[in-house]
């Protein structure tokens, strides 16, 4: 009965059976590339995503260098267009959408619900190969000459006027879409059918709920993207004119179908971070999460309403004003569940016993940056203002605040939080804290100026621009250097920890989740004996009372080993 926490001691000797962990259970290349172990597949994803993040990051660096001066210096006009298209495509579909679900989610989902593996282990591996295939296709399009449509593939430009590798890129996105559908199906089935005895729906950790909501959106929205991109492919490859205005094609049809996917997609990108942040905040403030059930409803609310607001990307596209008003209205409605989450995180801190390890710093940073990004989303949702700032850097700032300041920050937070579980090693706290703080300021430095220049009228997707915007671009580029450093630093100390890091105990943070019950790194089958759950998550202190103010209150693990 490990109901009483193991003492907080990073130096705790590794469990005797740590030897046969999932990392060492099988040997050899094949045991990795043919594995059906969700933990190993998570690591495969981790590797692939790092590569894509660097590619997308390199593109970002190129963009920022180019924009230091108003004139064109580094790239040709086409070169620049290909650059931001590549950046958008890679970052959205090959990094951020799969980031948290396919790495942390893949690794933790079965652990958190007390399962031996995902429902369909071989499907899991298959979807990784699909992902790699799609990535290879995209890279081919890239080296062959690139794509210049922007990540939004707007017709008729993409179908008729662009002479770049649109076809290949679109196919790559369709493929990667099916990869995430496969993962989504797998997750949903797992959560429905493989929960440990006693793990009722309302005892699920919030990360599991978030991934559940995400998977639903993935499964229901992605096919529409596939459909519309297939139409683009058909028009380019076989001249089948669905969007061609010269033959009566509707110029807005594509945009409607595209955003019908892509707005839900933005929640695909943020919901998992909500889950991660909820785990971190509760753990490091030693309090039960504030308003658990509301957090769950908020996730579901977002997942559903997310399907009804796509038109807010089309306020100036020529859609009727009344349609725009409806979409504007719903965009405001969907802000409320996010508000609930922000306030609940804040009040989880209240009367807590807070410590500031690196993951917590990332989480706190997330709250700030996400709030700014979200509030500017409301500004964009107000039609008169959007008419002015749409397609300017204001929008660029908005979504980077949420996607980079929010999602990517949360990703790093989750990475540093579960790293000891994944690898069994601890990393140096000083450097990781430093990295977290550096990322926060580097980020604000990079993207805040974009709000100002955007409101001043600096259009997006511009390689050359009037000189009055230069000062803001210089600030932003300077910040990007810091940001790059902050992103590269963790790669450094995490790698270091693999070789010289102290061994982590089973539960270095004294968290309550099932994943902390098993050894770190976990054995191939996750648990030595099937766990049984008899409480809700986050039992950091007895109900009714809060933590003591000096020594840590004894927390209850969520489950028992039988």
């Amino acid at each position, binding site marked *: 009965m490990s109901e009483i926490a193991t003492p907080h001691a990073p130096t705790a000797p590794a469990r005797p059976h740590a030897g046969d962990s999932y990392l060492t259970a099988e040997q050899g290349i094949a045991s990795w590339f043919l594995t059906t172990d969700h933990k190993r597949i998570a690591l495969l994803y981790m590797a692939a995503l790092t590569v894509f993040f660097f590619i997308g990051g390199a593109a970002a660096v190129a963009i920022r260098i180019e924009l230091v001066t108003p004139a064109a210096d580094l790239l040709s*006009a086409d070169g620049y*267009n290909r650059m931001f298209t590549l950046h958008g495509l890679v970052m959205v579909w090959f990094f951020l959408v799969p980031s948290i679900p396919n790495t942390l989610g893949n690794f933790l989902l079965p652990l958190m619900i007390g399962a031996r593996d995902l429902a369909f282990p071989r499907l899991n591996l298959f979807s990784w190969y699909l992902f790699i295939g799609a990535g290879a296709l995209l890279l081919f399009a890239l080296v062959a000459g690139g794509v*210049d449509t922007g990540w939004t593939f*707007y017709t*008729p*430009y993409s179908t*008729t*006027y662009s002479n770049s590798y649109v076809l290949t890129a679109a196919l790559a996105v369709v493929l990667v879409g099916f990869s995430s559908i496969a993962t989504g199906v797998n997750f949903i089935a797992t959560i429905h059918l493989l929960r440990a005895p006693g793990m009722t729906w309302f005892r699920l950790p919030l990360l599991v709920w978030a991934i559940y909501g995400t998977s639903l959106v993935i499964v229901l929205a992605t096919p529409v993207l596939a459909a519309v991109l297939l139409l683009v492919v058909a028009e380019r490859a076989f001249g089948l004119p669905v969007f061609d*205005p*010269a033959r*009566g094609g509707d*110029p807005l049809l594509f945009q409607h179908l595209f955003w019908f996917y892509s707005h839900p997609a933005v929640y695909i990108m943020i919901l998992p971070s909500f889950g991660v942040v909820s785990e971190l905040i509760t753990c490091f403030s030693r309090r039960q999460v504030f*308003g658990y059930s*509301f957090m769950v409803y908020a996730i579901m609310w977002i997942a559903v309403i997310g399907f009804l607001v796509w038109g807010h990307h089309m306020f*100036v596209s*020529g859609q009727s*004003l009344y349609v725009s*008003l409806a979409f*504007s*209205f719903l965009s*405001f409605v969907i802000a*409320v569940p996010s*508000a*609930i989450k922000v*306030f*609940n995180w*804040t*009040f989880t*801190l*209240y*009367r*807590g*016993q*807070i410590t*500031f390890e690196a993951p917590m710093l990332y989480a*706190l940073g997330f*709250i700030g940056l996400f*709030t700014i990004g979200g*509030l500017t989303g*409301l*500004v964009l*949702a*107000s*039609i*008169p*203002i959007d*008419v*002015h700032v749409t*397609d300017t850097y204001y929008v660029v700032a908005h979504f980077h605040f949420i996607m980079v300041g929010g999602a990517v920050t949360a990703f790093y937070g989750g990475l540093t939080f579960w790293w000891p579980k994944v690898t069994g090693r601890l990393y140096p706290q000083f450097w990781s804290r430093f990295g977290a703080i550096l990322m926060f300021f580097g980020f604000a430095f990079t993207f805040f100026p974009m709000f100002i220049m955007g*409101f*001043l*009228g600096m*259009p997006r*997707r*511009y390689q050359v621009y009037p000189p*009055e915007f230069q000062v803001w671009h210089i600030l932003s580029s300077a910040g990007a250097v810091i940001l790059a450093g902050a992103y590269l630093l963790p790669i450094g100390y995490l790698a270091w920890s693999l070789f010289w890091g102290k061994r982590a105990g089973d539960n270095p943070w004294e968290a309550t989740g099932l994943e902390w019950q098993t050894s770190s790194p976990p054995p191939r089958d996750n648990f030595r004996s099937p766990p049984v759950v008899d409480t809700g998550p986050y039992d950091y202190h007895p109900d*009714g009372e*809060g933590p003591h*103010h*000096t020594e840590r209150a004894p927390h209850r693990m969520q489950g028992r080993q039988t």
Partner: protein
Amino acid sequence: MSGISVWPVAASEAAGKVDAIVIFLLVISGAILALVGALVLTFSIRYRRGSSARRGALPELVNREVEVGWTAATLLLALFIFAWAGSTELSAFQPGPDALEIHVTAKQWMWKAQHPNGAREIDALHVPRGEQVRLLMTSEDAIHSFFVPAFRIKQDVLPGRLTELRFRATLTGEYTLFCAEYCGTLHARMGGTVTVMEPEDYARWLAAQPEGDDLGREGRALFVSLGCAGCHEGSTVVRAPGLAGVYGRAVNLADGRVVRADEAYIRDSILQPKRDVVAGYQPLMPSFAGLVGEDELVRLIAYIRSLRTEGPS
């Protein structure tokens, strides 16, 4: 431009209204951000591990009701912002009757404008201060977007469709025009200047322009050469509606709908006649899609509009 400004010039009627909402939202957002920030910081400091602050159970005050409370509060606040923004947009929408109509055609990568008297400009637009200006825009290739930051206005320009944009400039001067919708290689260079002049200067400027044959008359020529006249002017073979006074009138269609005959309608009547057939007529009119280019359409429409004055109707 000298110095660093953080606020764009406001040179149109709309600009004032937009800025008002922006300022309001800045305040609200600032307040919310301050609130969240303050809470996070004070809690983090006050309840850091080892501090002597009181812990224990949450006070009665903080409980489910609070949750419901702030959910409702944010909802109301959100709806209030929506109501204001929405109503502003609606009020800005109602069309002024006598607007100066200028045709704008966008193509990769330039803006072509044509004034009612036929005067043409490229990558430039001259407008009189204080007058309602109505731009009728269409694109010859990809989607573009007409964006003048100083006016706080923007409107996508679509191929195969007319979109319109209204504004009333309030401040003379030269303002930058951007193409805001990505449209290919030189998207970033597809710009120009909008010059706002005092009405009399505008008149003088207009007069000075090489008086291109005016749209209406060019349209008339096309109307004949394309054979429209053959049917629409007392043809014995085909019964086609006379077009005098059509523009702006409400037309009853064969399928019972009643539509206002605006540019878009006339455009459709020419390109897809079968789509709305006039009540009491046979759908005999052939489609001219592909036969008439955007520029020609502009002229035909101008001509049919000019018929407004003549003839009994």
